[in-house]
């Protein structure tokens, strides 16, 4: 939907924020910047027409994970410890992985192209068959809950496990009883 320059501007701001996050040592400032990063990413996703992803990014990245990071900050020190080594190997690994991902996009159909396989036979097929096969009036729901039922179940399990793990790690002693009730 968007003019290209808006994407480029948003990406520039994203890169600036990421660099600042890497450079800063104050953990509270890093948490705040991570929140800004999520908001920028969410804006970028809206710009790229991925509205549902943007919703999730804003709710999880900008909202809940900021709160969780702040919770974690109460359990640790205010500043990041300086480490002696420089992480050249990690940087190399990231660069190689990134280059591999970019190389992978070269084969993809152009953004929004009507000739992409998903528009030529996948989507029409769902539209034609979903109602008869599943009986669910909403096609998106039919795809999520019926055609990709196991996938969705797996995702839910992962998120549930991650939530439990975070609660255990943060160890809220006083609210043990209430958490037991919720589960």
């Amino acid at each position, binding site marked *: 939907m968007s003019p290209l320059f*808006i994407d480029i501007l948003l990406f520039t701001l994203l890169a600036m*924020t990421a660099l600042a996050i890497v450079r*800063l040592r104050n953990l*509270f400032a890093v948490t*705040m*910047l991570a*929140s800004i990063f999520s908001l920028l990413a969410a804006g970028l996703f809206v710009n790229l027409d991925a509205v549902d992803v943007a919703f999730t990014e804003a709710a999880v990245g900008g*909202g809940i994970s900021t*709160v969780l990071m702040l*919770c974690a900050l109460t359990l640790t020190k205010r500043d990041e410890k300086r480490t002696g080594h420089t992480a050249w190997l990690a940087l190399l690994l990231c660069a190689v992985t990134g280059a591999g991902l970019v190389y992978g996009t070269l084969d993809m159909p152009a953004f929004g192209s009507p000739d992409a396989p998903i528009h030529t036979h996948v989507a029409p097929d769902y539209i034609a068959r979903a109602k008869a096969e599943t009986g669910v009036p909403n096609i998106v729901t039919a795809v999520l809950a019926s055609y990709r039922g196991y996938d969705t179940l797996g995702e839910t399990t992962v998120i549930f496990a991650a939530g439990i793990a975070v609660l255990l790690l943060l160890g809220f002693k006083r609210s043990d009883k209430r958490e037991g009730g919720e589960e």
Partner: protein
Amino acid sequence: MNMFAAACAALFVAMLLILIRSFMGPTLYDRVLAVNAFGTLTVLLIGTMGFLTGRPDFLDIALLYALINFIGTIAALKFFRYRSLGKAAPKGAARQEDA
């Protein structure tokens, strides 16, 4: 259309300024304010971009962002308040309620 493009450009300039403030911000309060203001700017940018591209349906997404931004700011301010009060466990419990 030009009007919305100009508004978009102005919003980007404001975003840049706020980013600089949040990078340099000497005190933590500067950064909390920067995040809050940046959230507001994101809301405005999404709204403006919706009108710029002729699809103002995105306004309700912008509203959702405003709500989330509010929660984030409240959490950060609570963090300040309860951290200065002392021990870890009650603080964590208090903050978890609004999470």
